[in-house]
C-alpha cells in the first residue's frame, strides 16, 4: 500500500502523476472502464489523490494539554458504524468523470426505513442507516462496498474539514446576524437601539438592493470548519479528537474529510514545485491510509495514537533577545 508513494518520494519529480480530479484522459488504466469500484491492484496514495471522508457524530468538547504544557480545546467525534454503501461513477457529456464514495452511518431499525432505501442497503449488504452522504474522490480512491471505516482513516497531525448543520438561532436581528453596531443607547435616540438604520440611498436607486443584510432566520445551515488539526485517534471507541470547535449540536452527524486547503491544494502545490518528499504532507504526517482506513487495518495498529504539538519551542519559555 505504501510502496508506490515511497518510491515516488525517493525519485525526482514524477510528471506522469499529473491527473486532474475530473480529467477525461484515461491515465488511470487500472480503474474499471465500465463500472465504478476499487481496482484489483492495491492503490497507493499520491499527491493528486483525493480520499473518501467519513461520517461521524459530534459527542462534545473537552480539553487536552500538549507536551509543552499548553492547554487546547478538542472536539470529540465518534464514528458510528460508518460503512461504504456505494461507489459512484458518472460520465458527463464531455466525457469527464465524476467519482464518489457513498458512505452511511448510524444503524437504523428496518421498520422505520423506506422500502426504497431498504433495497439500496440490502444491495450493499449493510444495515439500514440514518444518514447517507457522498464524498467526491479521484478514480483510484474507491473503497469496496460494505467496508467499515474506522477512526484510523485519519492520521494524528493531519488537517480535516468538518461539515455539519450549524445550531439554529431562529429569527435574529441585524446586530446578531450580521454584526451591525446598532444605534446609540442614549442622547436622544428614540425607540431605535438595535435596528438596521438606513437601508440604501435616496431616489437613486430608489429601492433596496436585493440581498440587503436584514433580520431573518440565522443558523441551521450547512457550515464547514476548515483546517482543524487531528490530535488523537482512538480506535477502541472509534474516536477522532480534533483541535477547535465544530458546527452542530452534540450527537449531530458531521462529515469529516481531508482539508481541501491544507491537505489537497498545498500538498499538490508542494509536489508540483518539486519540494523535498518529507515536506509535502503536513509536518509529522508521513503517509495516509489509502484508499481508506478500515476496521481491519485498525486491529493491526495501536489503539490510541496521539500527535505532539507542532510547536518547536515552548510558549512559556521566555523569548530570547
Amino acid at each position: 500500500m505504501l510502496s508506490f508513494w515511497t518510491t515516488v518520494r525517493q525519485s525526482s519529480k514524477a510528471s506522469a502523476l499529473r491527473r486532474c480530479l475530473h480529467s477525461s484522459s484515461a491515465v488511470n488504466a487500472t480503474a474499471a472502464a465500465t463500472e465504478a469500484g476499487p481496482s484489483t491492484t492495491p492503490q497507493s496514495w499520491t499527491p493528486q489523490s483525493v480520499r473518501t471522508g467519513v461520517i461521524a457524530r459530534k459527542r462534545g468538547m473537552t480539553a487536552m494539554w500538549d507536551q509543552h504544557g499548553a492547554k487546547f480545546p478538542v472536539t470529540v467525534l465518534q464514528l458510528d458504524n460508518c460503512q461504504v454503501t456505494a461507489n459512484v461513477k458518472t460520465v458527463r457529456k464531455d466525457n469527464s468523470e465524476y467519482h464518489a464514495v457513498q458512505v452511511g452511518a448510524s444503524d437504523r431499525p428496518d421498520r422505520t426505513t423506506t422500502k426504497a432505501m431498504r433495497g439500496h442497503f440490502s444491495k450493499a449488504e449493510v444495515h439500514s442507516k440514518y444518514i447517507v452522504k457522498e464524498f467526491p474522490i479521484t478514480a483510484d480512491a474507491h473503497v469496496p462496498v460494505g467496508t467499515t471505516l474506522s477512526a484510523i482513516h485519519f492520521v494524528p497531525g493531519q488537517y480535516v474539514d468538518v461539515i455539519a448543520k450549524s445550531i439554529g438561532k431562529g429569527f435574529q436581528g441585524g446586530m446578531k446576524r450580521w454584526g451591525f453596531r446598532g444605534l446609540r443607547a442614549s442622547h436622544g435616540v428614540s425607540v431605535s437601539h438595535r435596528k438596521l438604520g438606513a437601508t440604501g440611498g435616496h431616489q437613486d436607486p430608489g429601492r433596496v438592493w436585493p440581498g440587503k443584510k436584514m433580520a431573518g432566520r440565522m443558523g441551521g445551515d450547512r457550515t464547514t470548519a476548515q483546517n482543524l488539526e487531528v490530535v488523537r485517534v482512538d480506535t477502541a471507541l472509534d474516536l477522532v479528537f480534533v483541535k477547535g470547535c465544530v458546527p452542530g449540536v452534540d450527537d449531530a452527524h458531521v462529515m469529516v474529510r481531508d482539508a481541501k486547503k491544507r491537505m489537497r491544494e498545498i500538498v499538490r502545490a508542494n509536489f508540483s514545485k518539486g519540494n523535498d518528499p518529507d515536506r509535502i504532507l503536513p509536518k509529522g504526517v508521513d503517509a495516509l491510509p489509502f484508499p481508506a482506513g478500515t476496521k481491519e487495518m485498525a486491529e493491526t495498529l495501536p489503539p490510541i495514537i496521539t500527535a505532539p504539538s507542532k510547536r518547536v519551542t515552548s510558549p512559556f519559555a521566555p523569548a530570547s533577545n
Partner: protein
Amino acid sequence: MFRALCRRLSAVRKYSTTTAEYPFSKSVTASQPVLPPTDALRKGKGLMQHLSKTLVDPEKRHMVDVLFSRRHPERLPPGSVLTAYTGQAPFQFSGVLIAIRRRGPSTSFTLRNIVQRMGVEMQFFVNSPDLKRVEVIQRAGGGGGRQGRRMRRAKLFYLRDSPEKMTAISAGVRG
C-alpha cells in the same frame, strides 16, 4: 463482577507502544486505553463522562477525586491555605483557596495572596503538566470548635475587598 472486570481487562489488545508499529507517522505516541471499551461507549452512551475520567492523568487522580471533589470527606474546603508547585515561574505560589472550578479534566482552583502589598490571584489547572504538586498548609475549619467554623461560601471573592479578613486567615496560619 470482579471476575467479569478481569475478563474484560484481559481482552484489551496488547500492543507495543513503539511508533514503528504505526507506519503513517514517526512522531506520534501510542498508548493503551485506560478502561476497556463497552458496547454502550461505542454507541456514545456515557462517552463524555468516560472521557472526563480517562483524560485525567493518573498522577492527578488524587487531586480531582479527593482534594477538589464535591463531597469527599478529605476534600479541601475553600479558605484553606495551599502552596502550588509548578514547573515554570513562579515555581511556587502560596495563597488562600478562594475558588474551585470543577470540570473533570479541566478542574482548576484559584489561590489569593498579598505579595509586596499587592493582591495577587493565580488560577492553577489540576490536569496541567505544569502543576507538580499541591501542599496543604492549613485546612479550613470543618465544623465548630477550635478549628473555627467553615466558610459559608463556595467562592470567597469577597476577600478582594476585605484585606482585614485576609490578614485574619494569614494570622491563623502562623498561630
